[in-house]
């Protein structure tokens, strides 16, 4: 088969540039195979993350001809016969070396989310929930943490609002907890005040790049935004709460802690 031209970004935090490689492509190959072939023959220290090579671990996320993709699931034959293939690290996160970037910010966001808090078990010592009730939660739990949605999200990518918005991956992480029938916690105040749910303006770029085809925006982010609106702005919900005497929790755990552990409902 023919030789193809690759432009691969080489460098580190101090700077770098694209380097051109010509390499033979064999039938059935994916971009990650080509990177490995270049690594073995031409640039033994070319850095790239990878692991499972089957689209299940989300390690080999890069930007190929400008699109965030998994290198292991991008077949060479999707490109035109003379097309140059340009590979660069995810733009949103700081580069470490070549195609490897520092995604530790994402791990920090995950830590900010209060973990699952189980309701008490039934009398027989078992938890009961039904398949219909967990289908949606299981959709979110298909996430392989490739962070393609994080890198494409324009709030994080172009506007650098990483202090204000946790990003689509962690919006569906929260959604997966909030919609879990066994979870006994409430993260709606945090969604608004800490996780920045209002920042997302539903451009659906995250959903488009998701290799697991999770309905990030429609099934995850929008329902979470609705819960925030109901809790904070819906007059009907507010009146119902007054009439039934059930207070609306609008404070975050951090605010409660600052107030000496008291929940200040319905401010």
């Amino acid at each position, binding site marked *: 088969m023919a030789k193809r031209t690759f432009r691969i970004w080489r460098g580190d935090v101090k700077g770098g540039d694209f380097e051109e490689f010509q390499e033979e492509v064999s039938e059935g190959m*994916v971009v990650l195979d080509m990177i490995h072939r270049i690594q073995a023959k031409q640039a033994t*220290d070319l850095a790239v993350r990878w692991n*499972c*090579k*089957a689209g299940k671990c989300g*390690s080999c996320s890069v930007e190929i001809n400008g699109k965030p993709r998994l290198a292991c699931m991008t077949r060479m034959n999707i490109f035109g016969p003379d097309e140059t293939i340009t590979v660069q690290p995810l733009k949103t996160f700081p580069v470490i070396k070549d195609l490897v970037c520092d995604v530790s910010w994402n791990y920090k966001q995950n830590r900010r989310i209060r*973990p699952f808090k189980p309701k008490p078990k039934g009398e027989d010592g*078992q938890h009961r929930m039904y398949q219909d009730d967990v289908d949606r939660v299981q959709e979110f739990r298909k996430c392989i*943490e490739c962070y393609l949605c994080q890198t494409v999200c324009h709030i994080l990518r172009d506007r650098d609002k990483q202090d204000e918005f946790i990003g689509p991956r962690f919006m569906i992480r929260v959604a997966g907890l909030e919609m879990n029938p066994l979870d006994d916690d409430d993260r709606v105040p945090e969604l608004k005040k800490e996780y920045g749910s209002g920042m997302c303006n539903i451009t659906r770029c995250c959903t488009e790049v998701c290799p697991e085809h999770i309905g990030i925006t429609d099934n995850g982010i929008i329902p979470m935004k609705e819960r925030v609106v109901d809790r904070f702005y819906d007059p009907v919900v507010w009146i119902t709460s007054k009439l039934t005497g059930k207070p609306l929790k609008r404070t975050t755990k951090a605010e409660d802690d600052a107030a000496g552990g008291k929940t200040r409902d319905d401010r």
Partner: protein
Amino acid sequence: MDVSELQTFEHDVLVIGAGGAGLRAAIQCSARGLNTGVISKSLLGKAHTVMAEGGMAAALGNVDSRDNWKVHFRDTMRGGKFLNVWRMAELHAKQAPARVRELEEWGAVFDRTKDGLISQRNFGGHRYPRLAHVGDRTGLELIRSLQDHGIHQGIHFHMECTALGLLKDGDRIAGVVGYWRETGRFVVFKAPAVILATGGAGKAWRVTSNSWEYSGDGLALALHAGAELMDVEFTQFHPTGMVWPPSVRGTLVTEGVRGDGGILKNKDGDRFMFKYIPAKFAAETADTVEEAERWLEGDKKARRPPELLTRDEVARSITAEIKAGRGSPHGGVFLDIASRRPADFIKRKLPSMYHQFKELAEVDITKEPMEVGPTLHYFMGGIRVDAESQMTKVPGLFACGECGAGLHGANRLGGNSLSDLIVFGKLAGDGAAEYIKGMGNSPTTDAGQIESIIRGATDLLNRESGENPYVLMDELQDLMSRCVGIVRTGEELQEGVDELEKLSKKVAKVKAHGASQYNPGWHTAIDLQSLLMVSQAVTRAALMREESRGAHTRNDFPGERDEWLKYNVVIRKAADGTLDVEKVERPPAPANLSEIANAKIEDLESGKVGKDA
């Protein structure tokens, strides 16, 4: 080099590896009040646990209430051809249900029964539906549940950090030297207890379901530190991995394809499995196409088709067809479900297989056959540990998960690996906690040892010239695939031993180019050292075991030999750096367990046997 200037962390326990076993061990250590560190070669959540599909075996009895630990134990022993460590198989069967329920407390969302309980599915070798699962992505659910729980337990995670060597104070463990992949800088972890949870060494073979990470680091670290390996001749080849395209060579094709009616054919279109039915399975296997077709149509009187024989039988048969020149164009055989089932059935029952072949091979499995061949999948053997504490022969050194030995004997049942991780991960954590409680004074690290470990790694970068690590990795994979395959002979294994000896001279001169910062060439050169040592151990153990049992098949010694059931092959590093390979007699089977494992299933279920166990 001034060792005192190296970055240093102090932990009570350092866990090496962040797959299911490592994470479960770390959670336990933390729960026991220990200052716990975890290092992992990859990012958190990327370990190979993520690739597991089918489920985790635990006798919950949610789907069939007749299931209990005794039946699970009996299945495991039979699957392992009775070479399993009895006590480990007992602990595993007894504790797996509690470990699975605990995952639910930590946020795992399993598929449900219609009563709202954790659902369980059927699998090879398990008498009842026993595998808790989430579609065909159970491993992802396991690792994510442990990860999302673990990050809130005060555990220190050190990601993309590779262990280079273990430090000792006299006989005891004192810590670990590693390096950060990101910067190439070295780091010392002072820790009186170290838990190895590093997985297997599948990367020594060309066609494998394992990724670059599975280079046998834990096994090599253990040998260097004075611990022993056991049963490493038992390497599981899964019969059906993808063989084409190159990007996915070795990736698993689930047994479910055959369970749902898929058949194996050679290039002449011959349904060859009928030629390979062994005598001991003949009574339960259809011997004509006509009968196998009736089974597919649901005739309960028809016997199962030969495509559903055990993994070792099917893998051997496929290999024989390929060797006889009747293979498919890319060196496999054909697995055909397209001509057997309607398209919508296939898409509904095998969604991830449909997706996998469609995206990666451009094969529509509802229209064309798949090309498949055996793929190195799993190490039954590994580091020899005490069944109760998971401690190795070296005080303070523990092992769990795939890198540990004992639970699976000569062959592992599907579904028993994920439950292995959580059962023995927890027990290793408990073992480490008990060890530290009774330890006395803390060990100290030795600057000379640290320097020598670091020099071993920097030499690979600093030498003037030498062999290309990728080329040597290629040679090793060629060699192991050729000489230590599914079907082995003494002659080939001896050739393997000799060739490995030659290769080791080249590996001693490997040269990595470039700087130490995130340098895959250097990482490969380092991984090669472990892989080579483990390859030598596997090859020599396979040469010593002169019988065929479970996953170890010797053409020159067909069939199980009763005499060999009395022994494990145990490997140590001798003072001169070479490997000592020895037959070690197994302790006698506990009478109560032996009775259960050998009982007729009716007697076990009626309570005639094992009532008081």
